[in-house]
């Protein structure tokens, strides 16, 4: 009796079936990424709804009668957070093909820029009435062939981005372009609630344990405290907190100002942009950013599926055997200090170490971001990955959405991950299917 009680307690608090701890829910429909954790109740749940409203609803240009909701642009990528994170999910990256392999870039894929003084740090393809968008991106997908260890072959899509209709002159040879697609919003607060020390103890920048895996932390400016802090959000871990990540997305993607980012994104060459009316100083009041941040902190995580499926069980063993877990760390426990009590002391299974890794020339964007160099990317968490097709009708993965499923994403791994990738390639066909089945059960 006592033993079974103890077992019950153990399972209730550390259970891989419940990847988000008490924030795990069991809706596996296309709303699977849109629910607060079931433990989020009372006023916090109402405030979650307020944040949801500001996440979901489009922002008009200024001036509009809905004065707390105006100020879009002058140039922008999207009119709302949910334009790219549809149903709190993941962006597809590309539209249907216009020719055999040429695609239009979907709203959910943005481009960070360096050395593009007329365009700032992010390309904004759209403009409000009377203001031109900055340029039009498109993508050419070339097919690259490869072979598994068993001799069977595969094809991967290699994107080549193109830009036309420049409003302020073409990019130069020095311009660096980093494509980034919108990712699913689940469990972000839990990631924020992990103690710095627990992430940092997995760092091994000089690979002293000689396992071929380094793992570096990005340290970035926390604007509010004006201190350098561990970066943990974004494709290169360039944001230290969800509040700053959200404010940066408002600034970069919708061109909405906040106390953290008070300046409109209008480079000196863009006169009409500079002269356009704004939606208040700042355009997003602090209480709106509070609610939006709470929303992003309390979105829950769907439970795992297909746990007893033999293929999934075998797949987990292969996943560990070929050392995917070197970077895709299965579990963390959140600390006891996060401002949102619901997030504290949760045992979670995000399958990421939240550190930067050299992913080789295969995935390099050649654009440094903070301490991250042009070959390094933050290990993305894997939770919810199997539900992306349900929520978003695709499973395009990696920073520029080039992979069309889990298998292609694995095959694109390079650099430090090349040995794990090669080990995967050398598994037999059924074993490869098992690994993919396991990952899709997360």
């Amino acid at each position, binding site marked *: 009796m006592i033993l079974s009680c103890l077992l019950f307690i153990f399972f209730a608090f550390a259970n891989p079936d419940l990847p988000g701890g008490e924030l795990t829910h069991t809706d596996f429909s296309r709303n699977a990424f849109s629910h607060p954790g079931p433990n989020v109740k009372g006023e916090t749940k109402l405030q979650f709804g*307020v944040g949801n409203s500001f996440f979901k609803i489009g922002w*008009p240009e200024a001036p509009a*009668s809905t004065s707390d*909701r105006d100020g879009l642009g002058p140039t922008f990528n999207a009119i709302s957070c949910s334009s790219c994170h549809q149903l709190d999910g993941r962006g597809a990256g590309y539209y249907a093909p216009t020719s055999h392999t040429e695609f239009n870039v979907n709203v959910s894929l943005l481009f960070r820029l360096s050395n593009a003084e007329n365009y700032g740090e992010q390309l904004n393809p759209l403009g409000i009435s009377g203001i031109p968008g900055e340029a039009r991106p498109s993508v050419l997908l070339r097919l690259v062939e490869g072979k598994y260890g068993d001799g069977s072959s595969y094809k991967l899509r290699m994107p080549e981005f193109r830009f036309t209709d420049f409003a302020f002159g073409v990019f130069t040879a020095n311009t660096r372009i980093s494509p980034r697609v919108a990712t699913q919003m689940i469990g972000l607060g839990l990631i924020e609630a992990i103690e710095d020390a627990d992430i940092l103890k997995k760092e091994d920048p000089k690979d002293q344990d000689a396992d071929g895996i380094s793992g570096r932390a990005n340290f970035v400016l926390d604007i509010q405290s004006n201190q350098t802090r561990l970066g943990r959000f974004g494709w290169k871990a360039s944001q230290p907190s969800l509040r700053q990540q959200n404010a940066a997305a408002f600034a970069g993607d919708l061109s909405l100002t906040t106390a953290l980012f008070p300046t409109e994104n209008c480079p000196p060459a863009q006169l009409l942009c500079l002269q356009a009316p704004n939606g208040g100083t700042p355009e997003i009041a602090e209480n709106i950013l509070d609610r939006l941040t709470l929303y992003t902190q309390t979105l829950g995580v769907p439970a795992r599926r297909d746990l007893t499926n033999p293929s999934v069980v075998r797949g987990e063993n292969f996943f560990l055997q070929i050392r995917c877990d070197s970077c895709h760390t299965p579990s963390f426990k959140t600390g006891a200090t996060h401002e949102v009590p619901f997030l504290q002391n949760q045992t979670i299974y995000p399958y990421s170490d939240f550190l930067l890794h050299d992913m080789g020339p295969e995935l390099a964007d050649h654009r440094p971001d903070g301490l991250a160099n042009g070959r390094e990317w933050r290990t993305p968490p894997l939770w919810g990955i199997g539900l992306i097709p349900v929520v978003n009708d695709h499973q395009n993965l990696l920073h520029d959405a080039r992979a069309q499923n889990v298998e292609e994403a694995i095959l694109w791994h390079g650099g430090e991950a090349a040995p794990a990738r090669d080990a995967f390639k050398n598994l037999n066909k059924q074993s490869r299917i098992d690994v993919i089945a396991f990952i899709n059960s997360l």
Partner: protein
Amino acid sequence: MFQLLITLLLAQAQLTPQNLYIQGYAQNAFLLYSKSAEEAQTLNQLVKDFVANPTQEKLEAAKAQWIVARKIYSQTETYRFFDSPIDDADGPEGLINAWPMDEAYIDSVKGKSNSGIINDRQGYPVIDKNTLLSLNEKDGEKNISTGWHAIEFLLWGQDFSTNGPGTRSFEDFVDGRMPNADRRRLYLSVITELLVEHIQSVAVQWNPSSSNNYYASFVNAPDSLSKVVESLRFFAGEELSIERMFVAYDMQDQEDEHSCFSDTTHYDLYYNYLGIKNTLLQKYNGISLVSLIADNDATLASQIGAQAIAIDSALFQFPAPFDQAIFIDSSRETIKWIIDSLQGLAESIQQAKTIL
């Protein structure tokens, strides 16, 4: 013929109470959408009269009918939130009811006297249904320029007062008094026609005398009842109580309300709720949703009935206008009571889901 009648009667006799309710629910959807289309058509006629010869009286008549038609439409929103014809992937909901308005995308606003499609003859030489619909489709990243609130904006104008709605003059539609009055007249009549067409397109899908429309599949689908119940839970517990009430209550921004130009948001809320209440309590073919619940759990059913009626009387005496009520302490108490009660109702409906 006689044989057919017998067959129909036999089929009727075999219907379970659940089937009977779902059939009645669907027939009522057809009645309400048809009524809504009719009232929108009356609005369309009054708008045509107005733009043919703009006067203040004709403007007032159109505004009064907008309010009447809007009340009926607000009741139909109980038929949302389960991928029904109004808001499935191809549904016209966004074209009918998008909010908030990007006013400067349509017409001049205070601080931008030349803005909008209406004032951009070069950019948009033709204003017709196809142009406006194609603008909505462009990238999906332009704000919507049609529907109830676009019509409301053109009829009332922006609301700058703290104690009344917008006060647009009929002269905005008179040549020589306001730039591009001809295009404003055209824009208003085009979007009012579109409104009628879009509501009609939903109504035909619920027509019980068709055999290959949504009605036909809905009354025969095994999961229709659970969809209806879940849509009610969502509407009461998330959309109406949080999105449409708590956001404004919490943010305290005067114009964070759906019908901000006409200051009639209190009607939107009441008639939205009336739709929910009727779906719960009204008998269709002699059976109400509450009676279906009572068959399994009488206590829960009477609890839902009591909650539904208490919310109804509170909302009926709602402290209007909504954009002022959110600042007054006594009104805030009432609003918060309604929000919490809708949350409570949604929890009861959630319980009912498990027993139906």
